[in-house]
């Protein structure tokens, strides 16, 4: 009896992905205890959220791929409709219109789009699998541009770029032409050149966005604001050395020099206390998660499963890279938390929801085999 229940619980779970997640959770609890100045309440909060998100993961892992495919189009349509509703009657708060008032609370529809976008595009390519040609890529690009444009208009550059990248990954995996990729790479290089040169940047972006880039290049321009974050984050990581200063011994951390050290800048705390070795271990842990995701993708029996799993794994990589890049000073400061480690529940729940989707894809393979 107990065995049956146990089997029912573990049946949809991918053991490897689950194990890697738990390892990262352990890192999270350890570093959060230090970053919060030994605040057990905060750590317990985080542990509670871990439990909740594992539940969410299990729930998503149980959904069959057929159901996921059926949900893709409605989820996307609802997501876009909500974004249009935001543009028309959204709640404006400090110049940004991101929220929708639904009576009891305010919701931010761009969050839903993070899952709906790869789901929709994966379903789209799957649906037209047999007749696939360049026109479908144009259509898919349009499906991507609409929500990304709406979010960009809110304005929310960071989120729109992350959602655009998740859509792009599906296009890439579905076989976007190499030549086009090369052109896009060149365009990306030109864009990077433009935004790093103030005179050019000001023509295409908002002034505050250009200021962020300029601050990244020369933190001393804004030593009290974003520049302060970069300077102190870099000092923390650099002073950690190869071995780190040891758990709870980071001077930058405990003398209050690192701002937002439990949330967006928690990686500075980690780098200071655990050094290059710790950073290497963390990179490996993230690589294991990404690698497991891509393995699930490459073994998936359907195009839908392949594309969805691949996009989820690569999107997870993007979050990790953007956060660590920003804290160590090679990317401008945008508000992206370190996945699974930063304090805060929402992002963790949505990441584990996507892990649930990965497991759902992985499980179907087993069923087909068995």
């Amino acid at each position, binding site marked *: 009896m107990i065995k049956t229940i146990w089997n029912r619980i573990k049946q949809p779970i991918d053991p490897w992905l689950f194990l890697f997640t738990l390892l990262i959770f352990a890192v999270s609890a350890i570093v959060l205890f230090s970053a919060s100045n030994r605040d057990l309440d905060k750590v317990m909060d985080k542990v509670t959220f871990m439990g909740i998100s594992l539940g969410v993961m299990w729930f998503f892992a149980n959904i069959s791929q057929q159901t996921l495919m059926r949900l893709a189009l409605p989820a996307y349509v609802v997501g876009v409709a909500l974004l249009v509703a935001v543009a028309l009657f959204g709640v404006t708060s400090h110049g940004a219109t991101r929220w929708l008032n639904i009576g009891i609370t305010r919701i931010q529809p761009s969050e839903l789009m993070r899952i709906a976008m790869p789901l929709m595009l994966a379903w789209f390519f799957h649906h037209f699998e047999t007749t696939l040609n360049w026109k479908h890529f144009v259509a898919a690009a349009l499906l991507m541009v609409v929500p990304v444009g709406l979010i960009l208009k809110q304005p929310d550059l960071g989120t729109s770029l992350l959602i655009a990248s998740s859509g792009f990954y599906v296009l890439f995996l579905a076989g976007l032409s190499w030549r086009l990729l090369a052109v896009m790479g060149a365009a990306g290089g030109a864009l990077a050149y433009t935004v790093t040169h103030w005179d050019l940047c000001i023509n295409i972006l908002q002034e505050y966005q250009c200021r962020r880039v300029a601050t990244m290049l020369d933190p001393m321009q804004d030593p009290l604001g*974003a520049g302060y974050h970069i300077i102190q984050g870099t000092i923390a990581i650099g002073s950690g050395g190869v071995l780190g200063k040891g758990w709870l011994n980071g001077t930058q951390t405990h003398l209050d*020099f690192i701002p937002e050290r439990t949330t967006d800048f928690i990686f500075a705390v980690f780098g200071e206390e655990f050094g290059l070795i710790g950073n290497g271990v963390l990179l490996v842990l993230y690589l294991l998660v990404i690698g497991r995701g891509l393995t699930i993708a490459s073994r998936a029996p359907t195009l839908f499963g392949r594309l969805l799993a691949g996009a989820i794994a690569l999107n997870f990589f993007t979050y990790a890279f953007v956060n660590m890049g920003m804290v160590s000073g*090679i990317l401008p400061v945008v508000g992206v938390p370190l996945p699974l480690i930063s304090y805060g529940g929402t992002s963790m729940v949505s990441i584990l929801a996507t892990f649930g989707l990965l497991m759902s894809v992985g499980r179907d393979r087993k069923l087909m085999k068995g």
Partner: protein
Amino acid sequence: MARNELKNSLAERYAFQLRIVTAVLFVLALFGLLFARFVWLQVAQHDKYQTLAEANRISLVPVTPARGIIRDRNGVVLAHNFSAYTLEITPSKTADSLDETIARLSHIVDITGKDKRRFKKLMEETRDFESLPIRTRLSDEEVARFAANSYQFPGVEIKARLFRQYPFQEVASHLIGYIGRINDKDLESLDEDGQLANYRGTDHIGKLGVESSYETQLHGVTGFEEVEIDSGGRAVRTLRRTAPQPGKDLTLSIDIKLQDMVEKLFGERRGALVAIDPRDGGVLAFVSKPGFDPNLFVDGIDPDSWKELNESPDKPLLNRALRGEYPPGSTFKPFMAIAALEGNFPLTRQTIADPGYFIYGNNRFRDSHKGGYGSMNFDRSLPLSSDTYYYQLAVQMGIDYIAKFMATLDLGQLTGIDLPGERPGVLPSPEWKKKRFKTPAQQKWYSGETVSIGIGQGYNSYTPLQMAHGIATIANRGVMYRPHVVATVVDPASGKKTQIEPQPERTLPWKPENIERVVQGMVGVTQFGTGARTFAGAPYVAAGKTGTAQVFSLRGGKYNAKAVSERLRDHSWFVAFAPADKPTIALAVIVENGGFGAAAAAPIARQVLDYYLLGKLPAALTANASAVASAPAAAVQEDISD
């Protein structure tokens, strides 16, 4: 066939694997880049950062700029700063529980129950690691006593701070506004504006009125000091200092003497007055009664005072001039008059029978002048405030024309004044009704509703600011200026003054002879019409219009001022400008539940014009404020209807 498919699918699988491999390489390349960056920071540059971190006893301490001073048009100070000592607690750093710390503190300095309640409220609004004042304005003796005992109180500090003070207290409180402690919502908005760094070290931010709308100018730019600190976190010496740029001073177009006089004239009554210089839109007086003492808010208001302000039936926190939406009553008629002339409607050239009512469909619309005037025409309609005439005019003009015309006067629109939180009022139209209501029956525009629109009743409702703005537009012969309360921004460091340029909004294409005809009608009001008694003996020619806004529905019933309770009594309105040929002031005044327009509101308007044009302060003001208004009221009611 089957073999082909299998082949295709195998080829596809192969293509996909190639993509995955590419993705893996991409991931490895970028993670490699990250790792290279870590090696650069943690190995190659380690010594440099190690030294920096060890010497990172260099802390950047923000130096808060002094907030700009607000003055009236004559240089009288309305908001300024003074320096005082406060006793502050950082809740997360106290040794024992907060209550115990406060209890022990109260043996050394005087801490009242009010202080404690205020502190509790502050704590709910902010986070634990912020330093919050438990006592402000310590005496020198208290400072000395605490300093001697400070070692017993970790997390408690004496700080010298600049405080905001509003010397006129209640006067112009809605206009000047106040500053309060920065809360989470303010932080969020500062973050969005990229202003967070500039507010490190600042505890207060403008919450209302000019303090809020000119926050950027008033605040200034934060400077910073590089301070060397020891391992305990204490400052040892200052290495480098970038001086802050103090906030800009503001000079308002308001005359505080006039403002004060009007507020005294209101006495205990509720209402609002807005006076504007029609030539440039500068606001001369901006009154909303009752007011409140803005000084209460500066360091967190205590719950008792807050409850009192918030729950008072007089709503002292409501800015009536900016946010109070009232039916304009007969003060709407001048707008109807110019609209009728500009549309060249036949009624403006006709004389009609005036039996004291107007029958439309099955409804009988009553004139407030019992029995009517027998006959009525355009030129007598304003001075005598004929309802019958404007009922018919409204039907002839039609609701669509009325709504379109009034919108050009900014009625039902935001005027764009430089104060936060303006309300648009309601300019009724079939489109508005469609948006406002849900069921088709409610959404339908009934032609009978157009009738009462003509006399400023029905769904019509406007703010006193909009009424003053509209009247100023007539006074300035159709040339509209956006109303503004700040006249100049002064840089205290250089003394450089920046004039806020008058902003011409638009020029309405009205025929000069039409405007003069309406002005003549409004002059008639103060010469022989409903406002004649109040304006008897004025040495200047004033144009005006009385108004009475119904609070209590009149339909069918008969209105008896004595029988209905005070709160249901009509609102008293008056709009005016003077001198009629070249106006330098235009105003709108409303006295809530004041009865007839001529009774309560007109006398206030007269006093304002007397002060502004003749420099005369009312003699009765110091003796008995309420007597000024109530004495003529009894007399007016007998022979004047409105």
